[in-house]
């Protein structure tokens, strides 16, 4: 029997060790080693960085100026960077194929204590109804439990998502909006950058929230919040290629693309017989479709069209001057 006890203590010891290891989160670290979650201890500093990013975007947007066509040009001011019309949905389901999530979504609001509400049912996700509808410009927010008292909940594997994974939200009328994961960040619960998650933005975003971090019951539960940031995957429409690109004298000219969605054109120039092309001009849709260069006759050119979402068309045929 002595041998039995040796076995017994060995097994029990192993189990105890296992439990101790479990308590110290070794496994969590092992299994979650390859997540892309970035833990942000000081979101204030981080939000500065985000702001800078937004400014950059403004500069990129400034490449083309869009004149507001709705208004009477005679007396109304010109509006730059006009955006597309809204078309949001009221979400009823969310599916995330990468982590086998397919759950129904219900509307939640703000609780009396100021927190965002979460569905009673741990297998349901909650869409923050006072906020942005999925599909619209702004931050739509959907939150879900990571676990219930008894086991994993709807967003248990949320931290396993990778950049590029897709999230599909289905509206009440069956319309789908697909988002692409951009980044995963976790914050100490009371230091989360609320403005960045819920505030206004020029982009069309969907942010998923769940709990993460250590569970400390007497401190209100999970210590951190995980936020998965994703942006709307716009249906990629092929941008029409500009035609009739011609070099005559000092002018490179082309025919405009007759589409309301096109905001401008990029002109590319090659000074080495077509080996390499470099962008030399961005021409907005309301401008004359011409690029002026006194040596245009010696170079080669192609032109692309760019739509409101920044999609660029394929290059036009290459044009060159009649004399060299």
């Amino acid at each position, binding site marked *: 029997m002595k041998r039995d006890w040796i076995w017994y203590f060995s097994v029990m010891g192993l189990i105890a060790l296992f439990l101790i290891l479990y308590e110290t989160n070794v496994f969590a670290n092992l299994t979650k080693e390859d997540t892309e979650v970035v833990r942000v201890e000081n979101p204030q500093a981080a939000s500065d960085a985000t702001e800078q990013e937004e400014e950059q975007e403004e500069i990129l947007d400034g490449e083309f*100026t869009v004149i507001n066509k709705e208004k009477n*040009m005679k007396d109304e001011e010109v509006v730059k960077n006009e955006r597309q019309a809204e078309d949001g949905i009221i979400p009823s389901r969310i599916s995330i194929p990468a982590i086998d999530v397919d759950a129904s979504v219900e509307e939640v609001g703000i609780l009396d204590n100021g927190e965002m509400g979460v569905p009673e049912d741990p297998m349901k996700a909650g869409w923050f109804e006072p906020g942005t509808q999925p599909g619209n410009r702004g931050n739509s927010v959907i939150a879900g439990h990571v676990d219930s008292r008894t086991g994993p909940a709807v967003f248990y594997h949320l931290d396993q998502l990778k950049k590029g994974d897709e999230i599909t939200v289905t509206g009440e009328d069956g319309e789908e909006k697909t988002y692409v994961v951009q980044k995963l960040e976790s914050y100490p619960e009371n230091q989360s950058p609320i403005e960045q998650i819920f505030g206004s933005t020029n982009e069309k975003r969907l942010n998923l929230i769940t709990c993460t971090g250590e569970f400390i019951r007497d401190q209100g539960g999970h210590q951190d919040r995980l936020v998965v940031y994703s942006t709307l995957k716009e249906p990629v429409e092929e941008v029409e290629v500009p035609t009739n690109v011609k070099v005559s004298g000092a002018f490179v000219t082309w025919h405009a693309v007759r589409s309301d969605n096109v905001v401008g054109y990029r002109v590319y120039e090659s000074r080495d017989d077509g080996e390499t092309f470099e962008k030399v001009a961005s021409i907005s849709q309301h401008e004359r479709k011409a690029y002026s260069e006194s040596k245009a006759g010696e170079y080669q050119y192609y032109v692309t069209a760019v739509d409101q979402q920044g999609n660029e068309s394929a290059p036009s045929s290459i044009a060159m001057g009649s004399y060299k």
Partner: protein
Amino acid sequence: MQNIKRILITLLAFMMLMPSIAMADSHATVKTPASDLRATLDQLLSEHFVLATTYLMKAYDEAPDQDAVWEKLDQNAQDMTPAIASIYGDEAAQQFEDIFRGHNDYVDGFVEAAKNDDAEARQMAEAEVEEFVNEFGGFLATATEGNLPEDAAKQVLEAHEQDVVKVFDHYVNEEYQEAYQAFREGFNRMFDISKALSSAIVTQMPEKFEQTKADTPAADLRSNLNALASEHFALAVLEMQKGYDQAADYDFVTWAENEHTSDFKAAIASLYGEEGAVQFEKVWQQDHITAQSEIVTAALEEDEEARQMAEENLMMFAEDFGAFLATATEGNLPEDAAKEAVWQHEEQVLNTFDAYVDGDYTKAYDHFREGYGFMFGIGETLGDAIVKQMPDQFEQDMMPEQMPDTGMGGMSDGITTWMWAAFGVLAVVAAGALYRKQTNS
């Protein structure tokens, strides 16, 4: 020694005088009474076309400036009356005015028919045009005493009316490339009409026009330059308006401008060769066509700085183009005068546009008419400089009206006087010879 020096100096002075002597000898000029008549008709007829087509588009769009355009279209018709009166007298001029001013009213018929999609109204408008073509064709044939045959007159009027309607129909159908193609064709046809009409009048009244012709190479050159310069002005004004309104046909006006540029280039090539033409095209496009469009962009974006820059570019163009013209004409067009004229033109373009942006349409089209007329002064001055530069090419100007009077008519008198005279001389000589022989012997 002293003598040789004096001879050399005299020779030198003489050689220096030579060019001016040669020039004084050359009578090549675009400034003849016949050529002036043709230029006047060039201006009035082509302006009529531009205003008529512009009015049709604006009226169809119910644009706020449609009334101002209409007013100028009517003024243009009234301006033709004194021109006719100076040739055919007041009575005929009045008759002309009645027919011609009246025909402008038909355009509203086309606009209303298109807006209401009313086939019957359209037919009525077409019938009225036909009536005008017959009536006015008859008037012209009678006035020119058949020098412009009635059939030819009607044909050319018919073609013109078709041009106007074609521009309008394509515009309504949103076939803008075709519309501006028709615009360019119709515009240039006005200069053909002017040539035919002025030639007929000049042939009818050679004395009134001092025996000069309206269809000499020099007159042709002046008229071609008139057409090129004034079409540029008309398209520039239209382009800037359409660009500012972001009209659907904006890109097609710029297309028409590019087509016009290559026509102008071809004209320069025929005068100064391919190299000069290439140079012309670059100067013409850069700081000019581009800058005029930049003025529009600046207005749309309300960018004061961009406006300033575009204006500076236009000033640069006045400098560059003035210098180009002076060099090309070898100083026959003085550089300063050329620069000043070009800048004056740019100012007129800017004034027309600015008044349009301000919504002061009467002022805008006042500036338009002034600027449009100015282009014909450019045609005259530049044309004359070119003709003076290359008198050989335009010398035909001096072809006499009739063959020389190289006989005194003596041969036609039957028995000729000189036979009698010769007979008399012979008789006297023979008599003399006989007399000497007799005295010697």
